């Protein structure tokens, strides 16, 4: 104001300068000394004014004071979400062992449920067998066994490999010789099995590791035999070892009717402490149907060749037809064997049971050490990063829209104030 310090106009303007009332000035001084306390809310003050004051207070807070607690809250929310996701993932939903991929495993779960019943092993074969009017092969096998006077007690073996007289070998032979139910299907019903999407041929397998003390191996092995026999299963191979902890143990390879697998595993799990348990499924419907259809075609060709043989006029024709007939019969036998193997795979689940003594080995998957801890930590960090990323993907656009809206509001307010001045 030095330029206008001696200007008459400036002096005249200074005379026009409004001055505050002394009472107002004193009141304002008092409020300033007290730090501008909020005025007391009169009784029944409208909520709008309180909200407006609250908004004004929040707007006066420095951003960094809001960012720190907001950031902490966001981190806490991310941790909670990560723990929740981890808890969901840790539920027992083990992936199938082996198998031929999801395409073949397909609807194995929905296919399993309808087949789970006390006679489930027969049901798989029943799908084809009953269509052809033949009895289920599993029942036929046991009937044959009983007729020969062999019972489940003869299944208690120790260190024996399956020989010609073992139940396993007999079952293989029985399966090879028994007419394949699919071969007797009438052509018109061939598509019936494939069309039954609920009835699938599912190959099931399981691995069970039990733990006991060295003195209990023999008793546990006996209980395993009892459990297998109770479920009409077959012990393909077994071996036991005696010794100190870590040396003593037993191993069993079992065939359990597929429909009784659940009960069998439950019974086996009660034999001793379960260290690990794994199950797997594989859908073998497609190859089963394919082989069955090929066997039907082969039989039809055999019938045709037999008719040709009956009509052969010359020796040369007869030899040619017989040669072709021999080849076709060999092919039919091969297909029959393949189909029997496929049916056996569907009808019986392969189960391996291992009885261990001593401390669990990390390779068996039962231990938890530094490696597992690192793996768990890595998974937690991965999940947390995923949750944070998803949170950013959701909150980012919202925050951007909010920021644009705030900037637009500030610009509009600035222009509105400028317009007020004309």
């Amino acid at each position, binding site marked *: 104001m030095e330029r206008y310090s001696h200007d008459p106009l400036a002096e005249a303007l200074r005379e026009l300068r409004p001055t505050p009332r002394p009472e107002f000035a004193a009141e304002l001084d008092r409020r*300033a000394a007290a730090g501008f306390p909020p005025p007391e809310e009169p009784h029944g003050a409208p909520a709008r004014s309180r909200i407006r004051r609250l908004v004004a207070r929040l707007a006066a807070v420095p951003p960094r004071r809001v960012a720190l607690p907001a950031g902490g809250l966001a981190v806490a929310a991310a941790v909670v979400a990560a723990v929740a996701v981890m808890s969901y993932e840790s539920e027992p939903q083990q992936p199938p062992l082996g198998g031929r991929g999801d395409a073949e495993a397909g609807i194995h779960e929905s296919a399993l449920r309808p087949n789970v019943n006390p006679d489930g092993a027969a049901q798989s074969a029943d799908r084809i067998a009953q269509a052809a009017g033949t009895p289920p092969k599993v029942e036929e096998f046991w009937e044959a066994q009983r007729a020969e006077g062999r019972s489940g007690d003869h299944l208690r073996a120790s260190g024996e490999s399956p020989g010609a007289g073992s139940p396993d070998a007999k079952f293989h032979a029985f399966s090879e010789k028994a007419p394949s139910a699919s071969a007797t299907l009438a052509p018109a019903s061939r598509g019936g099995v494939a069309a039954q999407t609920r009835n699938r041929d599912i190959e099931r397998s399981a691995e069970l590791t039990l733990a006991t003390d060295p003195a209990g191996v023999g008793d546990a092995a006996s209980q395993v035999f009892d459990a297998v026999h109770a479920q009409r299963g077959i012990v393909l191979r077994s071996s036991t070892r005696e010794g100190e902890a870590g040396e003593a143990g037993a191993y069993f390879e079992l065939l359990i009717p597929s429909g009784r697998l659940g009960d069998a595993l439950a019974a086996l799990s009660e034999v001793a402490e379960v260290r690990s348990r794994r199950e797997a499924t594989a859908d073998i419907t497609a190859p089963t149907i394919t082989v069955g259809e090929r066997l039907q075609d082969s039989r039809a060709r055999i019938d045709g060749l037999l008719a040709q043989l009956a009509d052969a006029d010359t020796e040369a024709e007869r030899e040619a037809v017989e040669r072709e007939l021999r080849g076709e019969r060999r092919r039919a036998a091969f297909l029959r064997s393949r189909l029997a193997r496929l049916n056996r795979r569907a009808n019986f689940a392969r189960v391996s049971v291992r009885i261990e003594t001593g401390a669990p080995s990390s390779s068996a998957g039962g231990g938890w050490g530094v490696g597992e801890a690192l793996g768990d930590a890595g998974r937690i960090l991965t999940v947390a990063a995923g949750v944070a990323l998803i949170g950013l993907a959701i909150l980012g656009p919202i925050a951007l829209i909010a920021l644009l809206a705030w900037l637009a509001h500030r610009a509009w307010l600035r222009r509105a104030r400028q317009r007020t001045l004309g």
Partner: protein
Amino acid sequence: MSEALLAAAEAPPAAELAFDRLYRASRDDVFAYVASLLGDRAAAEEVTAAAFERAYRKRSRFDPRRGEPRAWLFGIARNAALDELRRRGRQAELSAEPADLAAELEESAERSERRLAVATALAALAPRERELIALKFFAGLSNAEIAAVTGVSESNAGTKLHRAVTKLREACDGAL
């Protein structure tokens, strides 16, 4: 020693002291500026109090590297006054209340005539020009502070102020 420590502990922080100094130096200036914008003493008192309260709440957000404290304070007062005008749906006015002028009638007639002429000339200016006059002569801000408050460059503020003063002087020609 312990008394000195106690006194230091009881002393208000530096930010509080700085705001107190700013308040005492600017109280009347802010009122004069706001009153000149609103043309209403009662509303000017409310807006002045609201402006200082708002500045007090935001005192920790003031960055000295971005400008002078007085410019920052008058920016808050300006926004509060303009918001009040917007709320009332009126444009900025600059006029002396009749009571002020009536109180001056006891002075010399020449002085009263001069004040009336200046007030009339001031009322004839555009609102933006009147605001510049108020910031310069009522609030006592420098050109740099005026530029910071109004959001223009310092040279631009000086040029516009010079034009407003020239127009005012021409309108008051003969009365001064």
